[in-house]
């Protein structure tokens, strides 16, 4: 509906996941926070569509709020 593709699209999910993890190797918590923020901005520019980015942000937020509603804690 909103253009955000959420079906399975990644050929090698393990490799992709590892690329994300490797990027944080040896970084402090503060550096990792920066890495994630820069990563998101770079990916957002690659996507180049504010609507898709907003849809992804809304989807992520809904998932976090869902945890909250279940009494869980996303930061645990």
């Amino acid at each position, binding site marked *: 509906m909103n253009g955000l593709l959420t079906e399975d699209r990644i050929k090698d999910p393990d490799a992709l996941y590892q690329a994300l993890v490797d990027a944080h190797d040896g970084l402090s918590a503060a550096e990792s926070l920066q890495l994630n923020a820069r990563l998101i*901005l770079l990916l957002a520019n690659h996507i180049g569509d504010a609507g898709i980015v907003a849809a992804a942000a809304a989807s992520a937020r809904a998932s976090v709020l869902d945890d909250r509603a279940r009494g869980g804690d996303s930061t645990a």
Partner: protein
Amino acid sequence: MPKAYQHPTFAFTPPPELTGAAGKRRPVLVVGAGPVGLTLALDLARHGVPVIVLDDDATTSHGSRLICMSKRTLEIFDRLGAGAPFRAKGVVWNTGRLFFREAEVYAFDLLPEPGHGWPAFMNLQQYYLEDFLIQAAAALPNLEIRWNNAVTDVALTATGATLGIETPAGAYRLTADYVVACDGARSTVRRALDLPFVGRMFEDRFLITDIAMDADFPSERWFWFEPPFHDGQSALLHKQPDGVWRIDLQLDGDADPEAAVRPEAVRPRIERMLGKDAVFEIEWISLYTFRCRRLEQFRHGRIFFAGDSAHQVSPFGARGGNGGVQDADNLAWKLAAVLGGAAPEALLDSYDAERIPAADENILNSTRSTDFMTPKSAAIRAFRDAALALARDHGFARRMVNSGRLSVPAVLDGSPLNTPDRDAFAGGLPPGHAAVDAPVLAADGQDDWLLRSLGQDFVLLLYDARSDIGPLQGVRQVSVIPAGGAPAPGCIVDRDGLLQARYAMTPGAGYLFRPDQHVAARALWPDAAWAAAARDRALGKDAIG
């Protein structure tokens, strides 16, 4: 040290109403002689409407506040006959530099385009702005400014409004067909009508100072995020005339406001910024928290709100004063047309239709800038810092860095006064746009500017047309001779061909401008019936239904 501005004291004259003369009903009363009230009063008076401005003070703005004036503001002042002192005094600037911590991240250029009468921006203290408009007002016999006249209460009726006014010589009342509240952010008129604001408040405090010093910094806008010399989030340095520099220092929300504004607290902060050896005098210290909000409506029957009384923004982007001046520009000709019988009262509803979207655009941009400077959490701050860090190498990130999106003229594209295009123009300015300047030759062959030729009337500008379209009531027709042609009576010559290019003109094409120099309509082959209909629409005659 350069010579500082001397605030004048304007004489209080006991109003005739207090010395026995019967209080005459007035067409328009303006509350407040700030930038917006003065602009409005000048515009009304030049349209032949007698106007009284009431101001609770007897001098110009105490601190400077406003410093960046946009091209559109300068064009409006020029149309009002007040341009010359601004040109003589203002500091023109084109470059902005952005620093993150120690390093310059990038510089932007306002890309001055040749062939405009006024620069993109000029810096000038608010007290000069007011001073120059007051001088222009003094030349108009139908414009009276009553100093030390504080409006204290308001009674609104179906056909007008009555103001209660306090003066050193006593209190009196004045009744008018229309009242315009230009009495600033703490508007008494707004409070008297008990009108709420909608919008946001920011907690962070900004220490704003003007200092005088002999320094050879260039006239550029320097903006720092997390400067090494200041423990707050941001800082700004910007030049004004008379060797005065504006310094903004962002403080944390929990900074003690009273301690922060003491000169002995401010001076070391500035020394850390400029170096221990800097020789300067502090002219003005003030502490602000910013709001981005507006009234739900700017028209309440016979009372209108313009400028900060109607809407407030943070100063990043210079949208407060520049937006307010455009309110005045929008309202003056409409009031004049209604009072003069040329337009129905319904025209006045278009003030809300046109200026509320403009205010919302200013609020949106100022809110985003302020949000960028005042991250509300560690994660949000990480995004801000990420954009700044990536900006060194990536153009896309540079475009995200937001230290203010500078004021641009409002495009009134949803206005009911516009006549939608029926013809396809290859570019140019669609209805709703403010006129764009171009160099022209006047009928006598002298260099002139398009905007000066348009003046304050409805104008039908015809390009390379064989003849005008026949008499059209209330519309002046101006023929444009293409570049290279010889000047002729009643015509202007498109000196460099820029008018043709900026308006996508083709032979025979025409633009109808309103008195505020916004495009009302355009056509490839305008005829009398089309032009009369477009004029009527721009006068609000179609507004019903």
